[in-house]
């Protein structure tokens, strides 16, 4: 008796809700479609979702931090509980970040979670992009989606750099000095641009802090969120790609789990997993202990501190480039910081933006592609991608060479020369080995099929053609 009542109540609530919404928005057909939207299942398709959910955590923890952080370079003296800093001159920004860590309850948890989330955000975008590249998911009709994603990566890098810089600890000051110098180094306009952004020669006008702050908490997040919305819209509009797993998955039909009831708990489960990992990291694993770095003063520098991982490739590039200034007589045309700090990332991103176009040119394929390649199916693409990756990765490793020196005692100068050679050798090696490997995989697959067929024939069965 009671049970029947309960069941009836439940359905009344749902019916009421559905009617209410549909009669006011007319979206019942759309909602029904959305709930039966099909998600092909593969672990690598989750990387983009991880990035999405990390962004949610970033916004949440970030909003919390803005309630306590004061973006001001006004000078003050620390008088808080942390003894090593007491009496030190510092900016209000730095003091508020230290207070946020020590005085605000749960403040340090939020700050560290925010920082970890930023690192994971960029990492998941990069992994997602690698997946998209190596499976050829960037091809028409998803090239636009790819460009949007790539642009989000650019913004995410900038956003992370700004967040790291705002705190005004010693490391962030050094990071800003380098950023300023790289902008200065751009031929013909660099000095002008740097003065425009900073408002005055380094360390810039006081307003520079408000500029960074508004960019970090407002402009860039809004840009990223907008691109994210467009990105997701395009994904849904053209549907997901899928691997050629069975005879049912074709260029015409997508096979997978519908949003409801199958996929929703999976995806929500992923969200909570991401949140769990980030908050566990934020609580248990220290990151960027700004009170150890101390406040930034222009005359101070520190040795062997590492920036966030996603800036490592730029540090590495700045270190590897020989001290080459292009000058005409006494007239400097291109200062050295330009090569590693500006030209190198520009080149990498230009290549990445050109990927869909280059792929079309190389394959002569202009049609629609809903089925993914396995990396081995496109040996040239895979090999070239591996070469580009190896190139950036070696330079990234060079960014940690001073740490290697401290930890393993390998001379810094020797390492630098090794890296300078590897920068050329490793991409080439990656190219050759990867291509061979792809071809070998294809070959062994073909042999396997022939063997299967022969065995079947030997057993007197009809030859089975397995389509893969």
């Amino acid at each position, binding site marked *: 008796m009671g049970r029947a009542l309960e069941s009836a109540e439940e359905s009344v609530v749902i019916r009421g809700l559905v009617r209410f919404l549909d009669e006011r928005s007319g979206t019942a057909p759309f909602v029904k479609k959305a709930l039966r939207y*099909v998600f092909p299942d593969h672990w690598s398709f989750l990387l983009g979702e991880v990035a999405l959910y990390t962004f949610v955590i970033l916004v949440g923890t970030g909003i919390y931090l803005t309630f306590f952080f004061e973006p001001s370079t006004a000078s003050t003296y620390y008088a808080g509980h942390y003894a090593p800093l007491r009496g030190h001159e510092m900016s209000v920004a730095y003091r508020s970040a230290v207070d946020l860590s020590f005085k605000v309850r749960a403040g340090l948890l939020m700050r560290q979670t925010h920082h970890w989330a930023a690192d994971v955000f960029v990492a998941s975008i990069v992994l997602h992009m690698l997946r998209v590249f190596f499976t050829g998911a960037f091809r028409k009709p998803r090239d636009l989606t790819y460009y949007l994603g790539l642009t989000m990566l650019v913004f995410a890098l900038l956003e992370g750099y700004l967040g790291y810089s705002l705190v005004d600890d010693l490391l962030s000051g050094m990071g800003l000095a380098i950023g300023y110098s790289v902008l200065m*180094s751009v031929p013909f306009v*660099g000095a002008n641009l740097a003065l425009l952004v900073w408002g005055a020669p380094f360390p810039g006008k006081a307003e520079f802090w408000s500029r960074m702050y508004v960019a970090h908490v407002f402009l860039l997040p809004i840009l990223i969120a907008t691109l994210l919305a467009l990105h997701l819209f395009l994904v849904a509009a053209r549907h997901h790609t899928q691997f050629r797993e069975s005879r049912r998955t074709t260029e015409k039909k997508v096979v997978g789990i519908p949003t409801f009831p199958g996929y929703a708990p999976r995806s929500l489960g992923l969200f909570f997993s991401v949140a769990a990992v980030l908050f566990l990291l934020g609580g248990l694993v220290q990151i960027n202990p700004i009170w150890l770095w101390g406040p930034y003063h222009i005359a101070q*520098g520190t040795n062997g501190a590492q920036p966030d991982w996603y800036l490592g490739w730029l540090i590495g590039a700045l270190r590897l480039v020989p001290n080459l200034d292009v000058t005409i007589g006494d007239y400097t045309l291109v*200062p050295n910081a330009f090569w590693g700090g500006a030209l190198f990332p520009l080149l990498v991103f230009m290549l990445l933006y050109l990927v869909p176009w280059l792929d079309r040119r190389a394959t002569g394929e202009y049609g629609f592609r809903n089925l993914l390649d396995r990396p081995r199916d496109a040996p040239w693409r895979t090999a070239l991608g591996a070469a580009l990756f190896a190139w950036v990765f070696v330079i990234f490793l060079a960014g940690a060479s001073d740490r290697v020196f401290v930890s393993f005692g390998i001379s810094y100068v020797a390492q630098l020369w090794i890296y300078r050679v590897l920068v050329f050798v490793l991409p080439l090696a990656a190219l050759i080995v990867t291509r061979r490997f792809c071809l070998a995989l294809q070959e062994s697959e073909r042999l396997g099929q022939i063997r299967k067929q022969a065995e079947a024939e030997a057993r007197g069965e009809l030859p089975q053609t397995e389509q893969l």
Partner: protein
Amino acid sequence: MNALRRWAIALGVLALGRKQRRPRFADRPRIVPPGAPDPRAEWLVLGLLLGAAAAAAGFVVVYSFNHLSHQTQYLGLSLGLAFAFTAAALVVVAKRLVVTEELEEDYPVPGHPTTQEELEQLVAEGGDRFTRKRLLLTGAGAAAGALGAAVFVPALSLGPFLDTDALYETPWRRGRRLVDEHGKPFLLDELERETFYTAYPEGADKEEVGSPLVVVRFEPSELHLPAGRRDWAPGGVVAYSKICTHAGCAVALFRKPTFRPVEPGPALICPCHYSTFDPTRGAKVIFGPAGRPLPQLPLLLDRENGELLAAGNFSGPVGPSWWGVRSKAPRNPS
């Protein structure tokens, strides 16, 4: 007492009783295929949800402490576990409690050729009445370009865009005293040889890029300064801008040879990308990416009290390089 027992039973039934679903939509084909119930999975989900609740409650408790050692760690642990339990519950729901269907769906059609054509037609017909299209488009282009410029131009107020003179300004001028961070003057006699000092211009902003100096004292015979700088180092004291000419970090390391014959000379090193400068030779770059030497500040000795003063401005612009960096000499702000 009786009423209490009845309530307890009712609540128990409500909480623990399983629902018998009366098929409300029996007259229609199912949308979601049927599946068998899995009571054990339901219990598991319940357990995980209670775990999440407990961990979340733990977070609130930990938060409520005024002083607790390792509070951050406990906060992170409890909140993280709450999320982890929730995630686990959802995974069990996904894997064992909801039906996992494999649906097929048509990929959307590549495009809508008829509609595309209609759109083209629409645009064409909408502009039917214009006869001087070229001309008007040129006009529109001019308006758009000028408007764009007008909208963009206020951004130039952000900084001195065309005027880069500020980059050449430093607070150093002839007669300005060198002081340490507490404002104490540098006395020649107090400077130890081959020790690294940081100096600032007396009475000026220490945080300006043109302010900080590295000061090192050598035997005058050890110095091999470039031509024309003979008298820039009274008593063997040399002073350079402390800001690396590569990318603006502070040149904060000093390598002092401990075994003369084996080790090369003393060196100033920037910790950012390890540009290395030779202080005895006008801070010439001997290793690393920096493209030009650290600018040197000519020094003067106040004979009366032995204090070190600047004898002028730097030998070149301070800070990171830019295009045309050497086209002007550093000067004082006007």
